[in-house]
């Protein structure tokens, strides 16, 4: 991509959905960054009367959960965990997906065949089921959850990258790099990869969004990390209270939906900014 990151960002800001998305994400980032300052004791302090409704006690503007923990603190720390899970899982799956896709696409042949069958297999297994199995079997910790999500989401990236590599490796600039004796590694990472960053960047925002939802879904099934306060955790502990204190479910749900929505808006905007041609047609 010849467009510099800076100009992409400026164009995103001019894009209406990009702007809205960035604003929401900025808010979420702000929440997670400030959580430690505003609530230095952490989100687990059993500070209030359990199940205090929002607006009743000024010390707890959004009320307290079933154990008397401040909903605001929980939401702030939850933002931190949900974003971290989303970003880390997306990053790991980007790395795996890019490597697999690049190797398969660049070398082709049997290596491509093997890697693509592996990708097929991964895509054939219902990914959420695979994530459940991994987390269930290895144990529910933040790192397991991140790895589980990454392990099930890389195939999409691999396909994307492979398709671009297949196309680009025949181009003149690649051929000439080979002729002057450049190493495969340098051609892959120095020459071809920078040329297929656009779709990767676009899909990464969707990856983050999917990862956040997956984490919440796992937590909903009781497979969250009990030592961290994610929005999914708040949701699943709040759900039994749904009928008596719906706010315990509603706040994290709204936070979750808004964040995912914002990430998708950014994805759409990036798509428009980076690929004038409609990208969605390529599944």
């Amino acid at each position, binding site marked *: 991509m010849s467009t510099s990151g800076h100009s992409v960002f400026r164009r995103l800001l001019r894009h209406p959905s990009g702007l809205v998305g960035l604003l929401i994400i900025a808010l979420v980032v702000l929440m997670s960054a400030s959580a430690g300052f505003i609530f230095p004791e952490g989100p687990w302090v059993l500070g209030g009367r359990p199940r205090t409704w929002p607006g009743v006690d000024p010390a707890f503007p959004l009320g307290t959960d079933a154990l008397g923990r401040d909903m605001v603190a929980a939401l702030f720390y939850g933002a931190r965990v949900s974003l971290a899970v989303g970003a880390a899982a997306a990053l790991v799956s980007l790395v795996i997906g890019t490597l697999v896709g690049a190797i398969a696409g660049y070398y082709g042949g049997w290596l491509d065949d093997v890697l693509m*069958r*592996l990708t*097929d*297999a991964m*895509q*054939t*297994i*219902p*990914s*959420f*089921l*695979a994530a*459940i*199995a*991994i987390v*269930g*079997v*290895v144990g529910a910790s933040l790192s397991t959850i991140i790895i589980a999500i990454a392990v099930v989401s890389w195939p999409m990236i691999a396909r994307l990258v492979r398709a671009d590599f297949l196309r680009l490796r025949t181009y003149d600039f690649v051929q000439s790099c080979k002729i002057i004796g450049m190493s495969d590694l340098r051609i892959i990472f120095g020459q071809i990869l920078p040329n297929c960053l656009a779709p990767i960047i676009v899909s990464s925002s969707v990856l983050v*969004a999917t990862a956040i*939802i997956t984490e*919440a*879904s796992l937590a*909903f*099934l009781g497979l969250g990390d009990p030592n961290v306060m994610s929005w999914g955790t708040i*949701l699943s502990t709040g*759900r039994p209270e*749904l*009928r008596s204190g719906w706010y315990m*479910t509603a706040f994290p*749900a709204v936070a*979750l*939906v*808004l964040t*995912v*929505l914002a990430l*998708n*808006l950014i994805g759409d905007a990036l798509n428009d900014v980076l690929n004038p041609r*409609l990208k*969605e*047609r390529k*599944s």
Partner: protein
Amino acid sequence: MTTPAPSLPEQTPQTGPRKVPSRAMLRYILRRLSQAILVMLLVVIGSFFLIKMAPGDFVDTLAGTSDLTAEQMANLRARYGLDQPVPVQLMYYIARLATLDLGYSPFNNAPVLDILVKRWPVTAILVVTSVSISMVVGTLLGVMAARFSGKPVDLGISILMLLFYATPNFIIAVILILIFSIKMNVFPIAGFATIASGYTGWEYIRDVAWHLAMPVTALCTFFIAIYGRIGRAAMLEVLTLDYIRTARGKGLTERRVIYVHALRNALLPLVTMAGLQVSALVGGAVLIETIFGLNGMGRTAFDAVFQRDTNLLLGVLFVSSLSVVVVNFIIDLLYMVLDPRVEIK
């Protein structure tokens, strides 16, 4: 006036009537089949090692619920071959699988096949209905948005789809139960059909439909959003193409232009997408089946993981992968019907 590039790569013109040579078809099916077998073998091996990686086997889980002596546990392990090294167990499993023997589920006291025969239809109906409904509704919404592109209708639909896209299905499920079962009491919350109702024929179908209304809706929303968004984009692109102008130039009604000429072309990327989404739907079914008390493949797999019921888990994965492979094959055939430019080579 410049012409936009055609939506799909043009092939060199060929002459002669278009017929699918049966030999080529057979070769194609064989190739797909061998690929599928390889893929499913990978699925089985991968999941086998995954579950074997877990500490404890089903005998341990069993011992937790009933008092077993060490001797009884050893006997059980021998009975189920759990005392063998893992690769040997795998070999046995694959050898049995080759004869379509899926083994026995100790936790359910029944052959895996017997269990899956009951549970596969639940998920299959859930997923197929959801795919169909999301495709139809999503496509219609997408078409409508594209047709009124830039107008309030488009904006409304786009916002709705964004919301659908961003709301996890379990949240939707919870909201649906709250509104339609607890507040209004219109739909049954749990189960696939009224138990021991004695319904037959249409009565039974209606009963099942009633039971599946909420689960399908909850499962659909996300996919409606996906199809809607892709449908809108595809439609917008197709509507700029020359043959649409040709169709209008022929004096066709707008309805015919949109639904006959544009839609069939815009459907192509949607159909491809549907194939990719089937396994995602089965995954999503885990949550939906749990919440709505449906005993399908998703929930079965979930329980099997926690019971270390290796045979059952592998059975579910095997059968659901097989279904995904078959569905994808059908979708490829469908694609060929929809797009005459794609041919078996």
